[in-house]
C-alpha cells in the first residue's frame, strides 16, 4: 500500500510508467532507470513519518563548512555512519555552537535521499551536545538535591501581592508568550505598569542571561511581582529553566516571582524555586491579576455607596439630635412657665372671686341677724304687748317705785299715746 500511495502522491512520472505496464510486467523483474529507482527509493523515505522528525545521537566527524555556508559531516557510532547536511540558515542560527569533530551530539532533522549521489542522508535542523543525553535523570538528581537543601520549601515562598501595580516580565521580547501575557494583563488589569526585561529563553547561554534579566528587574526596585515565562517547547528547549544557578537566583529574589514555563505538564526547577508556579505564561499573568479591574470597579462602587450612606446617616443622626434638642428646649422654655403662671392667675382669680362672694354672703347673713336682734330690743314691741314706760318730770325712766314721791306728776308712755298722771302712793317691795 505504502508504495502505491507514494507513487500516486509524489511521482507522477512513475505513475504514468506503471500505468502502461501490464500486470505481468509489474510483478516480474523490472528494469528501472537509475533515476526512477532513486526517486522511488526517495519516495519511500519521504513518506515514512518516523523518518520525518527524529533525533540521532552520534559522534561528529568529517565536518566541513564550504563557502556556501552549508555544513556537511558524518555522524558515527561504534556500528555505523550517517551522512548529514545542515543548511546555511540552520548553521547560522547555531552561531558559535556548532560542534567540532569528535564531539558527541544529538542531531534533529529528517532523513532524505540525495539523488545526485544516490545517498540517503540526514538533513539536520539542530544540533546539541549529547551530554544532555539523559535530561530527565539529571533533572531528577538536581531537583532532589535542591529539595533536600530546602530551596523549594513552602516557608520560603513569598506571598504574591493581590494587586501588583508594577509587574516585571522576564521573557523573550518577540515571543508569543510575551504577547499572551500582555493580552491577559491588558484585559484583566490595564492599570498595571509593565516592565519587560528581555532575555533569550533557550539554549546554553540562556541561564546567565535570564538571571541577569531577573537581576536587572529586582535591582530597579520597582516591581511588586515578577513573572518568568516561556512558551511551550521540547524538554531540551525548556532545559535552561532547569539550570541550578537560575533556580537559586529565583529562590533568592527579593521580589516575589511567578513562573510560567512551557505547558501544564512541564515542571522545571525554576517552577519549583518560584514563589508560585503557573502552568503556562497565560496562567502566570492570570495568577498575578486575580484582583481584576472589574473587582476594582466593584470596590469603588461599594465605596461610593458607603460614602453616600454614611453621609445621609450622619444627616439623619444630626436631625435626630436636632429633634432631641428641640424637645429639651421646649421643656425648658419660659413660655411654658408663662403658660403655667397664666393658668395659676386664672385659678387664683377664680378662687379669689369665690372668697369675696362668700364674704359678702356671710356679711349679709350677719346683717340680717343684727337687724333681727335690733327688732327684738325695740321698746315699741314691748309696749305693744302692754308694757308702759314711766318717766319722772325731768324725763328719767322710773325703774324703782321709791324714786318717786307721792303726788309727783309722771309721764306714762303707752303703745299708743301718753298719759299724764299723779302718783297717789308709793309702795316699796
Amino acid at each position, binding site marked *: 500500500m505504502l508504495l502505491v500511495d507514494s507513487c500516486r502522491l509524489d511521482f507522477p512520472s512513475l505513475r504514468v510508467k506503471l500505468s502502461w505496464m501490464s500486470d505481468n510486467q509489474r510483478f516480474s523483474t523490472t528494469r528501472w532507470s537509475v533515476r526512477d529507482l532513486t526517486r522511488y527509493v526517495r519516495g519511500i523515505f519521504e513518506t515514512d513519518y518516523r523518518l520525518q522528525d527524529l533525533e540521532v545521537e552520534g559522534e561528529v566527524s568529517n565536518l566541513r563548512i564550504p563557502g556556501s555556508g552549508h555544513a556537511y559531516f558524518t555522524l558515527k557510532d561504534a556500528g555505523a555512519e550517517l551522512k548529514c547536511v545542515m543548511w546555511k540558515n540552520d548553521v547560522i542560527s547555531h552561531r558559535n555552537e556548532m560542534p567540532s569533530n569528535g564531539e558527541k551530539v544529538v542531531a534533529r532533522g529528517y532523513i532524505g535521499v540525495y539523488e545526485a549521489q544516490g545517498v540517503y542522508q540526514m538533513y539536520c535542523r539542530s544540533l546539541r551536545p549529547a551530554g544532555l543525553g539523559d535530561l530527565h535523570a539529571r533533572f531528577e538528581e538536581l531537583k532532589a538535591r535542591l529539595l533536600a537543601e530546602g530551596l523549594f520549601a513552602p516557608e520560603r515562598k513569598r506571598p504574591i501581592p493581590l494587586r501588583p501595580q508594577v509587574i516585571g516580565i522576564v521573557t523573550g521580547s518577540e515571543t508569543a508568550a510575551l504577547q499572551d501575557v500582555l493580552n491577559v494583563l*491588558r484585559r484583566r488589569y490595564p492599570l498595571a505598569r509593565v516592565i519587560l526585561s528581555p532575555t533569550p529563553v533557550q539554549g546554553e547561554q540562556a541561564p546567565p542571561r535570564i538571571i541577569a534579566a531577573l537581576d536587572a528587574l529586582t535591582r530597579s526596585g520597582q516591581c511588586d511581582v515578577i513573572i518568568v515565562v516561556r512558551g511551550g517547547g521540547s524538554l531540551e528547549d525548556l532545559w535552561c529553566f532547569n539550570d541550578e544557578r537560575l533556580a537559586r537566583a529565583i529562590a533568592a529574589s527579593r521580589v516575589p516571582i511567578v513562573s510560567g514555563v512551557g505547558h501544564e505538564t512541564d515542571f522545571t526547577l525554576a517552577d519549583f524555586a518560584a514563589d508560585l508556579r503557573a502552568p503556562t505564561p497565560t496562567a502566570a499573568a492570570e495568577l498575578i491579576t486575580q484582583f481584576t479591574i472589574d473587582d476594582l470597579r466593584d470596590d*469603588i462602587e461599594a465605596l461610593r455607596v*458607603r460614602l*453616600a450612606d454614611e*453621609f445621609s446617616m*450622619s444627616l439623619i443622626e444630626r436631625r435626630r439630635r436636632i429633634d432631641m434638642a428641640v424637645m429639651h428646649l421646649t421643656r425648658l422654655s419660659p413660655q411654658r412657665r408663662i403658660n403655667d403662671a397664666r393658668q395659676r392667675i386664672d385659678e387664683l382669680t377664680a378662687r379669689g372671686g369665690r372668697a369675696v362672694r362668700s364674704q359678702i354672703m356671710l356679711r349679709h347673713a350677719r346683717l340680717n341677724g343684727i337687724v333681727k336682734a335690733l327688732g327684738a330690743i325695740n321698746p315699741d314691741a314691748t309696749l305693744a304687748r302692754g308694757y308702759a314706760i314711766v318717766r319722772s318730770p325731768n324725763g328719767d325712766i322710773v325703774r324703782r317705785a321709791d324714786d318717786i314721791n307721792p303726788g309727783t306728776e309722771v309721764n306714762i308712755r303707752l303703745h299708743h299715746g301718753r298719759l299724764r298722771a299723779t302718783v297717789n302712793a308709793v309702795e316699796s317691795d
Partner: protein
Amino acid sequence: MGENPSFEDALAELEDIVSRLETGDLALEESLSLFERGQTLATLCNQVLDQAELRLEQIGSSPMPLDSTEE
C-alpha cells in the same frame, strides 16, 4: 494632595474618607466637604479605570506605547 492624585492615592483617600465618615464625630461642614471630596474621588477613580491602558516599558529604556502596533 493635589488636584489630580494618582489612582492609588485617590483610592486610598476615598477609603479614608469613608471610614472617617463612618466613625462620625465630624462637624457638619467637614462631613459635607468630605462627602463632596469622596464623590469627586470616586468619579476620578472610575474615569481612570475607564481610560486605563497597560503601560509597557523595557528595562533600561524609556517607556514605549504598547498598543501602537496592535488592534
